[in-house]
């Protein structure tokens, strides 16, 4: 188990990690999310003893990293992919790491085979693609067959096959009872990989919850309604307490986006008045949007964005009918239709 307690790291007067506390449990994939500059990599480097915190502790199975007798057999870590000498072969890079732990050279061949780099193992890593370098990094992390793994953006630079491979590998390693802590700024990637999420922004903890719960709690739920009698219907829904917005698909009007009212109730209202419905679709905002909403105030490098488009199709992994009575007020999106 990895435990972070009140961890604080400043670079000059800039606070990178701000009194951060969380634990990473074994037997599941824990996603570590945050916008660029949120402090994810710094937190990982603090856990691994590469950086010194101003205050707080980070321990692995109760020990600080630099107290571990055989670190690579306790935690495997993947930081930047290209963090290896371009003139050294992958085999020799892994060999010196194995030797430093007293691991047999046979173990190097094993992990090279595992990541599929055996054919190029003796070539200099300077000629490797980003994806190949990433695989060397993963091989290094697995070298000591550790019960815990810290992976910083492991799918960066991988092709779809590689992404799938890493995803399955993490799930399998977690299923074996290992502690898997994986950072990403890609919410949707985490949604399909992580069982649990730790979200940070500007170095502070924003959320620490199971992935499913995070999605349900954070997501905006809406219902897309299309009807030839849209004006009448929107008036009716507003009277009954719903909030109606004109949903647009690009510049084309796509229908009404209703929040604060579930699809069955809208259907009942329409039926009672004999209003024709062409479409009635419950939608769950994607995890990406939930994440953006949650971290909007804490993004380190915000870009000026044009007016946000209407809610996208409910493509989130937890897509399904929303439970009645759930949901929370969402920031205004699109153009509100006056009652």
């Amino acid at each position, binding site marked *: 188990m990895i435990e972070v307690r009140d961890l604080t790291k400043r670079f000059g007067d800039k606070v990178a990690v701000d009194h951060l506390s969380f634990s990473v449990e074994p037997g599941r994939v824990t996603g570590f999310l945050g916008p660029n500059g949120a402090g994810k990599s710094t937190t990982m*480097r603090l856990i*691994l*003893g*590469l*950086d*010194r915190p101003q205050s707080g502790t980070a321990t692995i199975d109760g020990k600080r*990293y*630099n107290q*571990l*007798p*055989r*670190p*690579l*057999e306790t935690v495997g*870590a993947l*930081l*930047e992919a*290209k*963090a*290896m*000498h*371009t*003139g*050294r*072969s992958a085999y*020799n*890079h892994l*060999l*010196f*790491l194995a*030797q*430093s*732990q*007293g691991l047999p050279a046979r173990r190097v061949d*094993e*992990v090279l*085979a*595992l990541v*599929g780099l055996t054919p190029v193992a003796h070539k200099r890593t300077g000629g490797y693609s980003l994806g190949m370098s990433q695989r060397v990094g993963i091989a*290094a992390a*697995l070298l000591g*067959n550790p019960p815990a793994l810290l992976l910083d953006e492991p799918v960066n630079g991988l092709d779809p*096959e590689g992404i*799938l*491979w890493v995803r*399955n*590998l993490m799930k*399998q*390693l977690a299923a*074996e009872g290992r502690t898997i802590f994986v950072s990403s700024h890609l919410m949707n990637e985490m949604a399909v990989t992580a069982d649990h999420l730790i979200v940070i922004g500007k170095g502070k903890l924003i959320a620490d919850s199971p992935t499913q719960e995070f999605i349900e709690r954070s997501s905006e739920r809406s219902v897309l309604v299309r009807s030839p009698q849209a004006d009448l219907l929107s008036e009716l829904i507003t009277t009954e307490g719903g909030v109606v917005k004109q949903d647009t698909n690009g510049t084309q009007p796509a229908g009404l986006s209703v929040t604060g009212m579930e699809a069955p109730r809208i259907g009942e209202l329409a039926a009672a008045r004999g209003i024709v419905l062409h479409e009635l679709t419950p939608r769950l905002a994607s995890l990406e949007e939930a994440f953006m909403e949650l971290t909007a105030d804490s993004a380190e490098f915000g870009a000026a964005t044009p007016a946000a488009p209407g809610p996208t199709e409910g493509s989130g992994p937890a897509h399904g009918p929303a439970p009645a009575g759930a949901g929370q007020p969402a920031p205004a999106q699109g153009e509100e239709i006056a009652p």
Partner: protein
Amino acid sequence: MTAVAPPAAPTPAADAARHVGFSHLLMAEWTKIRSVRSTVWTLVIFAVVSLGLTGLITWLTIRALNSGRAGGRSSGIAADPVNFILGTGLGLGQLAICVLGVLVITSEYSSGTIRASLLATPRRYPLLIAKGLVFGALVFVVGEAVAFGAFFLGAAIVHSHFPVALSQPGVTRAVIGSGLYLTVLGLFALAIGSLIRHTAGAVTTVIGLVLVIFNLTGLLPYSWGAHIHAYMPTVAGLLITQDKAQAGQLLSPWQGFGVFCAWTALLLIAGGYLLQRRDA
């Protein structure tokens, strides 16, 4: 690639019995240093430059003497032919050792390997000590070989005019001392590299110190100036490579070598301390 094979679990019994110690660290550092081409190339350049220049300059000097055109320039070689032989090629070749000493540590920073190294060996002093020992041993072996090679090559060329031999007083010590000087010089460069962490900056600093700054202190006036000059790292260190004492020499060869070692140890301790303190 699609199939995911679980990493084989080490057997717990064998695992518990396995002791991880300093020897493993030495093996790892040896793998690091031998597995990059810069090591081989720098050492080849060192050997070629040292032996090549020793041969070339001694040969040119002897040829000038034979044709009677050397004039006053023969006085240096006449006064101390051993120092002339050892000083010519190794004087330039030592720069390759400076570069290699710096590269051994700064290439870890520039490539990012330092993070892999520190993840494997979070106790940072032993890491630097292992690196220093492995690199020092390598430079010692190559340095002694080249020093003896340069001596025998030069001695063979100057033989007709200035017969020199290892059996003459101080000569064996000077030749062995040349290898020792190069070893400590390499560690001196490694220490500067660990302090500065950037290849270009560290190489410039080391070469600037060795070729310019330390020698410039010789221009300081009065007797305190002479003392400062005598205690400069490479000025003191070079005494062990000289078979004959110079006029007004303040330190004995071994004292001078001790001063050079002390400077290097001090810088290595500072480098180790900063390695321990700084974020990697």
